[in-house]
């Protein structure tokens, strides 16, 4: 899937939540681990429902997890 304009802090939030594994987050959000991997890498923009479920898994607001960018970050900026 093409890179999305949605950035996220899932990796950092997982780290902050006792290094929660992708598998555990997937279980809490009710999706497959592959989907968490794709979202984390910015390759898949989740539906609003799934975004809320992920935010709820971390017990934070949706904007603490996902941010919308008018201009997607370039590969250089990502590094």
């Amino acid at each position, binding site marked *: *899937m093409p890179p999305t304009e949605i950035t996220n802090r899932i990796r950092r939030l997982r780290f902050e939540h006792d290094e929660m594994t*992708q*598998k555990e987050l997937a279980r809490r959000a009710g*999706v497959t681990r*592959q*989907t968490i991997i794709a979202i984390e890498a910015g390759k898949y923009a989740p539906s609003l429902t799934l975004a809320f479920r992920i935010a709820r898994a971390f017990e934070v607001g949706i904007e603490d997890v996902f941010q919308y960018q008018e201009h997607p970050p370039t590969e250089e900026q990502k590094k």
Partner: protein
Amino acid sequence: MLPQQRLAWFQIVVFATACATGCLLWLLAGGQTVLAAFGLLGLWGLSPLFVRRKKKEPGEVLIDERDREIVRRATLFGFAASYLAFVLVSMAIWFCNWMLHSNETVSVHTLTLPVWIAFAVAVVARAIAILVRYGREDADATD
């Protein structure tokens, strides 16, 4: 391997087997016998067996919204490829019959060819698209 990937591989293997059988028939018997190889595509009817998978643990999600999106896009690609194949094969038949041999009638055996090929291309193109889309994302696993 995810159920969708297993299914895609099964469909590609069946298609490859049908193609190999078709080539063999053409070499051994020639002519219209090649069409008999398309009968092997009936094995695609076993596809549901490859989608089923027992859950390893209670509550495990096997298919979610991303999988459905990948399959939806792959299906669209399959239909587009199928339509293209149908038109190209139909034009090729017309070209061979009319332009090369000035033959105004088409054999009833040849007439089924565009339909069979379009059907096969739809399934195989969809399977390849599914494998490609999953393949691109598998490399990103971190833990």
